[in-house]
């Protein structure tokens, strides 16, 4: 059974994250699409047929976006830079939280008396899992976002600022706790493992970021079910 609302939601997914159409333009075009579907249904077409024809008449979202982009070339760049800065803040917060989390786990392992090599392995695993979790959450959030709510509000700015101060402090406290419980040789023994493993974790995070970016920058094709 074809669900019209679901279809329209699918169509909305064809808008790029940095769409040049803008929230108001998107609302306007959505109103157009809905009216078009309604009229086609009123002459006896099924919801599925009306949806398919209305979408076809509307044209491809990518074409629309390139037409809209001609209206405001400067603003397109402003949006891109805003996304880049947002990405920088998001990555800094992610990095900080992974570091703080690893430091806390490290402190726990020092108290529990885990051996240096094992502790390094566990720290790497924790890092990998934390990054994977953050990437999945980020990917899902961006995929299901509402184009009208692409706003970095004061609430988020204050939260990000607070988190960026709190997380390094947590990381430092974790490390200090570690140092009070274990000998310096424990650190030197685990540091080699962490250094080599860190390369692997970083490379994996980098590759995952590339995959996420590729998938997000490609608009999903509207599916007529």
């Amino acid at each position, binding site marked *: 059974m074809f669900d019209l609302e679901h279809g329209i939601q699918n169509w909305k997914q064809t808008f790029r994250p940095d769409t040049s*159409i803008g929230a*108001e*333009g998107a*609302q*306007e*075009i959505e*109103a*157009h699409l*809905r*009216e*078009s579907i*309604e009229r086609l249904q009123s002459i006896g077409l099924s919801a599925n047929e009306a949806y398919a024809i209305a979408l076809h*008449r*509307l*044209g491809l*979202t990518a*074409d*629309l976006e390139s*037409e*809209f982009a*001609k*209206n405001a070339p400067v603003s397109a760049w402003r949006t891109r830079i805003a996304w880049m800065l947002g990405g920088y803040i998001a990555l800094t917060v992610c990095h900080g939280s992974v570091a703080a989390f690893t430091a806390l786990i490290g402190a726990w392992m020092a108290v529990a008396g885990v051996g240096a090599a094992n502790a390094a392995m566990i720290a790497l695993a924790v890092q990998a899992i934390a990054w994977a979790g953050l990437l999945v959450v980020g990917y899902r959030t961006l995929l299901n976002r509402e184009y009208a709510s692409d706003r970095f509000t004061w609430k988020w700015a204050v939260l990000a600022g607070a988190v960026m101060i709190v997380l390094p402090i947590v990381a430092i406290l974790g490390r200090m706790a570690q140092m009070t419980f274990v000998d310096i040789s424990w650190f030197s023994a685990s540091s080699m493992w962490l250094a080599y493993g860190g390369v692997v974790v970083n490379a994996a995070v980098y590759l995952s970021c590339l995959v996420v970016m590729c998938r997000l920058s490609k608009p999903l094709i509207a599916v007529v079910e």
Partner: protein
Amino acid sequence: MASKELIAASTKPLVLAMLSRGESYGYAIIDEVRERSGGQLEWSEGMLYPVLHRMEKEKLILSCWKVGENGRKRKYYRLSASGTRAIATERTQWLAVHETLASFWGVETCLT
């Protein structure tokens, strides 16, 4: 069926002419142009919106959101004072093209 370039070039004067008859919204504009041209001018519907936004930015038209008779919110457009003046310029230019072509092809000039 008009070519893509001709459709793109004629969108602005058509919108101005259409709105000189009173305010309207995207869907109705497309509908009326299709009807009046006897299907000769078939726009890719979405393409009207960037043009409307550009014309609004150029202060040729003004817009406001209103609830239409079907209970749905629509963005209505109307001519501004400079839009009304722009009609005269567009008209002169299009008639010049029309008359030149007509002088070659022997079509009756019936628009003035």
